[in-house]
C-alpha cells in the first residue's frame, strides 16, 4: 500500500512538471507582447527596454523557465499584467470560493445521485425507472449556465425570493443571506452531477445484479433486503468512487460558467478575465494550480478505491 501511494505521488509529480513545462513554453509563444500589456501602447524605446529587462525577457527561454519554476515553488507566480498585483494574492483569495462551491455541490450530488441510481436499478423497467432515467438524461444535456439564467429569471427577478448575484462568506453577511446566495449556484452546479451519478450508479448496480453471486444469494433464500444492501450495493457502489475525482476536477473547471452567471468572484471568473486580457502569469498559475488540485483529487480517489476494493491490489497496478 505504501509503495503504491509513493509510486502514484511520483507519477503525479511527473505529470505536474510536464504540465508546468508545457504551459510555460506555450504561453511564451503568445502573439501579444507583454511589455505593451503592462506599459500601455505608447512607450518610448527606453521605457520599452526597461520593462523588457525587468521582466527578464532578455534572458534565454530555458533560464526564464528555471527562474519561474523556482519562484513558483516558493509560491511566487509573478505579477499579474492586468491587475498589477501579485498573482498568488489574486488567486489565494479566489481558490477557497471555487473549492467551497465545488465540494459543497459534490456533497449534495453524490448522495442524491446514488439514491436515484439505486431506485432506478432496483425498480428497473418500471415507470419510476423510466421517468428518473429520462430526467437524468435530459439534465445532463442542459447547459449549466443556462439553467442558472432560468433560475435567475424565475427566483431572482420574477419571484424575488433569492438574491440574484454575489457571493459573500457567512462572516460578512450572516448565515441566512449566505445560504440564500448559495442556493441557485449550487443547484446549477449539482444538477449535472446528480444526473451523472444517477446514470453511473444505475449502470454499475445493474451490472452487479446480473452477477452469479447475486443469483446464488437469492437462490439460497437470503432476504431480499439483505441481498440488496450486502451484495448489490456494496459491490455496485465501488465504481462510483472512481468518478468522484473526475467529477471534482470537472466542477472546478465548470464552475466558471456558474460563477459568471451569478457574479461570484472565484477562479473561473479570474481565468476568463485573464484569458481575455492575455494575462500570462495568471493563466500559468491557474492552469498549474487546477492541475495540482485535480491530480490530488484523482490520487485520493485511487487510494480510496484500493482501500474499498481489495480485488484491485498492487499487482494489477504494475500492469498499468
Amino acid at each position, binding site marked *: 500500500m505504501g509503495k503504491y501511494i509513493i509510486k502514484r505521488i511520483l507519477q503525479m509529480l511527473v505529470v505536474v512538471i510536464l504540465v508546468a513545462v508545457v504551459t510555460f513554453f*506555450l504561453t511564451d509563444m503568445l502573439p501579444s507582447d507583454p511589455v505593451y500589456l503592462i506599459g500601455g501602447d505608447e512607450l518610448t524605446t527606453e521605457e520599452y527596454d526597461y520593462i523588457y529587462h525587468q521582466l527578464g525577457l532578455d534572458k534565454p527561454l530555458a533560464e526564464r523557465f528555471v527562474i519561474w519554476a523556482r519562484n513558483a515553488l516558493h509560491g511566487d507566480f509573478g505579477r499579474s499584467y492586468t491587475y498589477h498585483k501579485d498573482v498568488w494574492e489574486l488567486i489565494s483569495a479566489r481558490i477557497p470560493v471555487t473549492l467551497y462551491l465545488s465540494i459543497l455541490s459534490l456533497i449534495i450530488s453524490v448522495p442524491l445521485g446514488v439514491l436515484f441510481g439505486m431506485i432506478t436499478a432496483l425498480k428497473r423497467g418500471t415507470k419510476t425507472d423510466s421517468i428518473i432515467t429520462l430526467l437524468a438524461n435530459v439534465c445532463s*444535456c442542459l447547459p449549466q449556465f443556462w439553467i442558472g439564467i432560468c433560475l435567475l429569471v424565475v427566483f431572482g*427577478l420574477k419571484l424575488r425570493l433569492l438574491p440574484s448575484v454575489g457571493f459573500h462568506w457567512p462572516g460578512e453577511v450572516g448565515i441566512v443571506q449566505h445560504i440564500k446566495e448559495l442556493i441557485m449556484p449550487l443547484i446549477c452546479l449539482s444538477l449535472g452531477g446528480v444526473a451523472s451519478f444517477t446514470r453511473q450508479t444505475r449502470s454499475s448496480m445493474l451490472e452487479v445484479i446480473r452477477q452469479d453471486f447475486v443469483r446464488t444469494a437469492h437462490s439460497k433464500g437470503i432476504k431480499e433486503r439483505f441481498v440488496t444492501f450486502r451484495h448489490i450495493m456494496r459491490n455496485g457502489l465501488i465504481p462510483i468512487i472512481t468518478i468522484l475525482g473526475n467529477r471534482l476536477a*470537472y466542477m472546478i473547471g*465548470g464552475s466558471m460558467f456558474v460563477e459568471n452567471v451569478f457574479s461570484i468572484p472565484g477562479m473561473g471568473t479570474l481565468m476568463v478575465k485573464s*484569458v481575455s486580457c492575455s494575462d500570462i502569469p495568471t493563466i500559468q498559475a491557474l492552469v498549474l494550480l487546477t*492541475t495540482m488540485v485535480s491530480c490530488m483529487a484523482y490520487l485520493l480517489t485511487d487510494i480510496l478505491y484500493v482501500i474499498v476494493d481489495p480485488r484491485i491490489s498492487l499487482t494489477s497496478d504494475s500492469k498499468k
Partner: protein
Amino acid sequence: MNNTSVSNTYDKKLARRERVRKFLRTMFGRKVVIAAAVMLFIFIFIAVFASVLTPYDPNITSPYQAFEAPSSAHWLGCDEFGRDVLTRLFYGARVSLIVGVLAVIIACVIGVFLGLCAAYFGGVVDVIIMRCSEALMSIPRIMVSIALIVIIGSSITDLAIILAIPTIPGYIRMIRGQALSLKNSDYVKAAEMQGANSLYVMLTQILPNAISPIIVMMTQQVGTTILMESGLSYVGIGIKIPIASWGTMISNGKNYLITQPMLAIIPGICVALLVICLNVLGDGVRDAMDPRLRGEA
C-alpha cells in the same frame, strides 16, 4: 471453382447488407431515436440552408426595431440591436454543428493515429504517448481549452481544434486498449509475415476491428463539445460577438433579463434540444453496435 468464388462474394455482399439492415433496425428500434434523428435532420437542414430560409441578415442592425415583439415578420421578435432572433438562431445552429462535428473528427483522427502508434510500436513510443496523454487528462478539460484559446485564437476552426485537444487522450486510450488485444491475433501476424508495412497493418488490419467503440465515443462527444462551445461563447472567450452563436446570444440576452428574458432563454432551449438529440442518437448507435445488447455475444 470460379463459380463458388462468385457465389462467395455474393454471399459476403448479402451478409454485409444484412448486417447493415440489422444495425439500422436495432438503432431505430426505439421511437425516441427516430424522433431524435428527425430533429437532428431539421437542425442540419436549418444550418445548411440558413441563408435561404430567412430573408434577414443575422448581423445587420436596425436600431428602430430593437426589442420588437414577435410578429408575422419576425417570428421570435428582435434583439437589442433590432436583429431578427430567429435568423440568428438559424446561423447559430451552423456554428454549433460545425464546431461540434469538426472537433470530434479532429480528435478522433489524431487520437486514433497516436493510439495505434502507441499500441503497435510499444516501448518508448508507447511510454511517451501515454505519459503525455495522462498529463493532458489531469488538467480539467475546460482549463485546457481556455488556456489554448489564448494561444490559438477563437475563430470557428480554432475553437474546434481547442475543444478537440482535451478529448484526444480518451480516443488514444480506447484505441490502444483495443489494438493491444488485436495485435497478437492471427490475421495481424499473417499480414506481417506477408511483408506488409506497419502503417498498412495498422490501418487495414487493426483499425477496422477496433473502430466500433470509437464510433460510439464520437457520437457521444459531439453533444458535449457543443455544450462546451456554447459555454465558452457565453463567458465571452469563444465565438466573438458579431458572429451569431447560441452562446453569445445567451450572454447578450443576459443584459435584458428583466424586460426580455426570452432573448436569453430561447437560444438555451436550442442548445439543450440539439444536445439531447445527439445524445439519444449516440445511445442508439451504441445499442446497435454493442453486440451484447444486440443479442449475439
